[in-house]
């Protein structure tokens, strides 16, 4: 990569992290399509770099949530086994699908579905309620299947999987939204770490791509999380939706084979 491309990649990652950080979403949902479209990088490298960036942002947000005692570590521990299995499975499936025309189209289609889910999540999300981690939460069997799917999606597409984790913990486990978001943030780190480890061992990580992505996403998420309270909610949400719609267009085009 040229120095200009490295700087450009870092700036795109920063923007994706900032936008994502304002809404409690990882930046991966913007970053992955942008990296593929604008920098023409192979999917494998993009996914691996995005996952490493997500590990760093998850650690940073978990630090805050753990300090407030909002992460239900016991619940995370129970769910993470299935998530990690899903993450390993996702990385294996990814290795089969990456860099093949049909596989890439399937991935783009799946990504488009996740973007639509993110937009739905953005507008239907309940406000964070009060409540801390508690011991009397019952995990319904469907929750294990759901977080397994979250793990697969995370490693396959290079996103955090919070879109799946948060509703799962809220609806199928019955935890307060605030606890769900905090526990999900912690789980995303472990999930992305599992996927990253596989990509690292397979030599899919290019430090020249992962470096600017990691730093940009990490710094952007910090800025996004801190500035969200100063920016008008409705306008911000709409602008984020416009960005997501553009990403949806890019992925839809790829899925249909016209991009």
């Amino acid at each position, binding site marked *: 990569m040229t120095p200009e491309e490295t700087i450009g990649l870092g700036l795109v990652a920063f923007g994706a992290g900032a936008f994502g950080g304002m809404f409690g979403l990882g930046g991966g949902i913007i970053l992955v399509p942008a990296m593929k479209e604008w920098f023409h990088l192979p999917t494998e490298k993009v996914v691996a770099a995005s996952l*490493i960036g997500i*590990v*760093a942002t*998850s*650690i*940073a947000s*978990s*630090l805050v949530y*753990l*300090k407030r*005692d909002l*992460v239900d*570590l*016991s619940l*995370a*521990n*129970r769910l*993470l*086994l299935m998530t*990690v*299995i899903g993450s*390993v499975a996702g*990385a*294996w499936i990814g*290795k089969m699908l990456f860099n093949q025309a049909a596989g890439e189209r399937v991935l783009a289609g799946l990504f488009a579905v996740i973007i639509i889910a993110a937009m739905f999540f953005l507008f239907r999300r309940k406000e964070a309620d009060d409540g801390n981690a508690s011991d009397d939460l019952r995990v319904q069997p469907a929750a294990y299947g759901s977080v397994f799917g979250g793990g697969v999606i995370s490693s396959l597409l290079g996103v955090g999987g919070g879109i799946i984790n948060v509703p799962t913990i809220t609806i199928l486990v019955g935890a307060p939204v605030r606890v769900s978001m905090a526990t999900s943030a*912690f789980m995303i*780190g*472990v999930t*992305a*770490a*599992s996927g*990253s*480890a*596989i990509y*690292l*061992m*397979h030599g899919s*990580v290019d*430090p020249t791509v*992962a*470096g600017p992505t*990691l730093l940009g996403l*990490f710094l952007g998420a910090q800025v996004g999380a801190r500035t969200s309270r100063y920016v008008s909610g409705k306008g911000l949400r709409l602008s984020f939706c416009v960005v997501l719609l553009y990403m949806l267009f890019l992925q839809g085009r790829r899925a249909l084979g016209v991009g």
Partner: protein
Amino acid sequence: MSAESKASRVILLIGLAAGLLVFLIGGGLAHTGHLGPGTAVAFVGLWVLVCTPLAALVAGAFKTNRLEFRRAVFTLLVLAAGLFLGLKK
């Protein structure tokens, strides 16, 4: 803050700082012409970063109770098996 949250937090804090620092040192070395050693150091930084959430999970479980600790170790063993099988393929 509960003991388990504190344990996880300490590991996350140390891992994040160490991982980023080592990665930046590697990037700096590569930038000054030492491409081979720089890349190797950068990879060490990435591995430190990647292992941090896993270590935090185990640390938190260790402080909770024995059952949680066993569960966390089992999760890590499953991941290790996945890595091993993936490498053999």
